[in-house]
């Protein structure tokens, strides 16, 4: 069944677009706090009931979360015949848009502090 519906082109394209949006606007599905060893849907820093110190919060897994879900659902819905009509050249831009989002997300590390 998977072979007839799942289109790799749809999966890769949707994953890339959603991941780029996630990192650009910082929309993690969930966060991970390695110091506590704990996952959380929301930002624990905003939750007064959680005693500190929280340690660093990781969004990377959460950014991939939305991308995976969106890509899987879309790839399962759109029939393969239609999905395979996505021209291959579209994938030339995928790395470019992801890296653009990555720059927006991470530029704080190369700009002057407070810049």
């Amino acid at each position, binding site marked *: 069944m998977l072979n007839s519906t799942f289109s*790799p*082109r749809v*999966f*890769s*394209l949707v*994953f*890339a677009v959603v*991941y780029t949006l996630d*990192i650009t606007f910082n929309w993690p599905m969930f966060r*991970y706090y*390695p*110091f506590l060893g704990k996952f959380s849907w929301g930002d624990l820093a905003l939750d007064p009931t959680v005693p500190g110190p929280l*340690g*660093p919060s*990781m969004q*990377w*897994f959460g*950014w*991939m979360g939305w*991308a995976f879900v969106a*890509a899987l659902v879309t790839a399962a819905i759109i029939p393969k015949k239609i999905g395979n009509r996505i021209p*291959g*050249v579209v*994938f*030339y831009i*995928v*790395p470019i848009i*992801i*890296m653009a*989002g*990555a720059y927006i*997300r*991470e530029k704080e*590390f*190369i700009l002057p*502090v407070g810049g």
Partner: protein
Amino acid sequence: MIAFWDLVHALLAIGLLGAVTHQGLSVWRKPAPARAFIDRFRAVNGGGYANAVCVLYVLTFALGSFIYPQFVLDVKGSLIDYGMRKTIFLFQLKEHVAVTGLCLLPVYWHFWRTVPLTEDVGVRKYLTTLLMVATWWNLVVGHVLNNVKGLV
């Protein structure tokens, strides 16, 4: 124990690097008899590597994800204290480069194993070269960061 997983991550990355570099160089090679060592390195049957590259990429990615929290705690924190922000930026890019490769893996496999090899040659060449460059970038940056501060 984290040092062990870091080592396994590095070894898988080397296997991936070998496979994807063989394949990446082969897509740029004009068909001709191969005599010199470099030529034979490139004169491989590219199609045969697609499955191995996918398996090795996913395994390397999974292990990288597994040791990443410890990196955030031990290494990234120290680098911030040292003020080594550009070094952190390098690793943050590695994070996104790894996801770029992961998300393109299905369509990379698709163009090698489903689409006839005579079609979309340019796209196949681009995707394979991209995965090769991404793997090299991640290995070098990972090695640089490991040299700055390891996972002990």
